[in-house]
């Protein structure tokens, strides 16, 4: 994935756009980043919001994304609503959300109809089986990338919580709500206790 920021962004880092985007501009911008986003929209969202439109500085973007990441639900959907509403209130949130989700939902619904019609065709079955094997590998790679910081700072408590959730959901196959209603308070208590100990 081409990742590094283009030279234009380095030349003028702090000249943020001064006029707030209109509802139509919000809709079109989020539709564009969504349709460009194969295998995750985040990279494209950052590029459009920070580098191209200059609606936020990199720090503001990171802060907003961090908020959306620790809230439940699809991160990028949360980001679109929080971002849009910051500029244009609730209507802005709805416009950004509709841009992000509307056009790809149309595409995916068409694909779903095609799959319902042709899903039994042998060649298609074989292709999808291959794609799904590779896609699972991609997901596993993301998991290991996310684990690296915990491993580097030898966060044994964090890794133990991680392993417990993994076993409860992945191996024992308990319902998500039940596991999280136990795990979230526990993990919060641990995080608070660790912080107290560091502070003391």
């Amino acid at each position, binding site marked *: 994935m081409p990742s590094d920021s283009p030279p234009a962004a380095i030349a003028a880092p702090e000249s943020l756009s001064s006029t707030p985007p209109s509802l139509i501009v919000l809709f079109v911008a989020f539709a564009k980043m969504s349709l460009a986003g194969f295998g995750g929209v985040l990279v494209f969202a950052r590029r459009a919001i920070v580098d191209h439109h200059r609606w936020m500085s990199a720090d503001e973007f990171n802060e907003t994304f961090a908020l959306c990441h620790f809230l439940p639900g699809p991160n990028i959907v949360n980001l679109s609503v929080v971002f849009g509403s910051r500029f244009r209130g609730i209507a802005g949130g709805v416009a950004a959300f509709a841009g992000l989700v509307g056009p790809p939902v149309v595409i995916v619904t068409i694909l779903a109809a095609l799959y319902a019609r042709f899903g039994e065709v042998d060649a298609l079955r074989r292709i999808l089986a291959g794609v799904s094997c590779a*896609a699972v590998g991609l997901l596993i790679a993301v998991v290991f990338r996310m684990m690296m910081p915990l491993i580097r700072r030898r966060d044994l408590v964090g890794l133990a919580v991680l392993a417990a959730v993994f076993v409860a959901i992945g191996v024992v196959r308990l319902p998500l709500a039940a596991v*999280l209603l136990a795990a979230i308070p526990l993990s919060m208590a641990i995080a608070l206790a660790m912080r107290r100990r560091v502070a003391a």
Partner: protein
Amino acid sequence: MNSDGNPIWTLAWTFGLMSLFAVGGANSAIPEMHRVAVDVHHWLSDPQFADVFAISQLSPGPNVLIVTLIGYAVAGVAGALVATLSMCVPTAILAYGVSRVLTRSSHSRWPAIIQAALVPLSIGLMGASGLVLALTSDRTWTAGLVTAAAAVVAFATRLNPLWLLVAGGLLGFAGLIG
């Protein structure tokens, strides 16, 4: 209300509730989607679930659109729309509310603590997604090998993930995955 009667209602409350528990994003909720769609309601078979995951990864847009495909399999276009909105709207309203509160009370130490608590949970959930999907997708040893190879390449390089999906599709088309 009898939820067996109209699958649209079942979709709405299933995904509406799931959206509030999807810590770390849509990919964290995949084991729950599999449990509900395959084991509990028998909306999809195991291979169909793997196919639906593959299609959602091949399509542009946010990962959450896997629920659009599940919804379509249950109740056509209406099911697709209801599943998508149910999975997005409750958490979007929550995000809107929280972001308003946070901008007002500028610097609280709670975000950092919540983040420290939730990061290991969300990684554990995504790991479980990887396991559940590997068990549904990798039914032959060559399939397992493709998954392992894709994982190593994606972890070690910055190759565009789309190329790995295309490579997997070609290997599948060539009949090497079975």
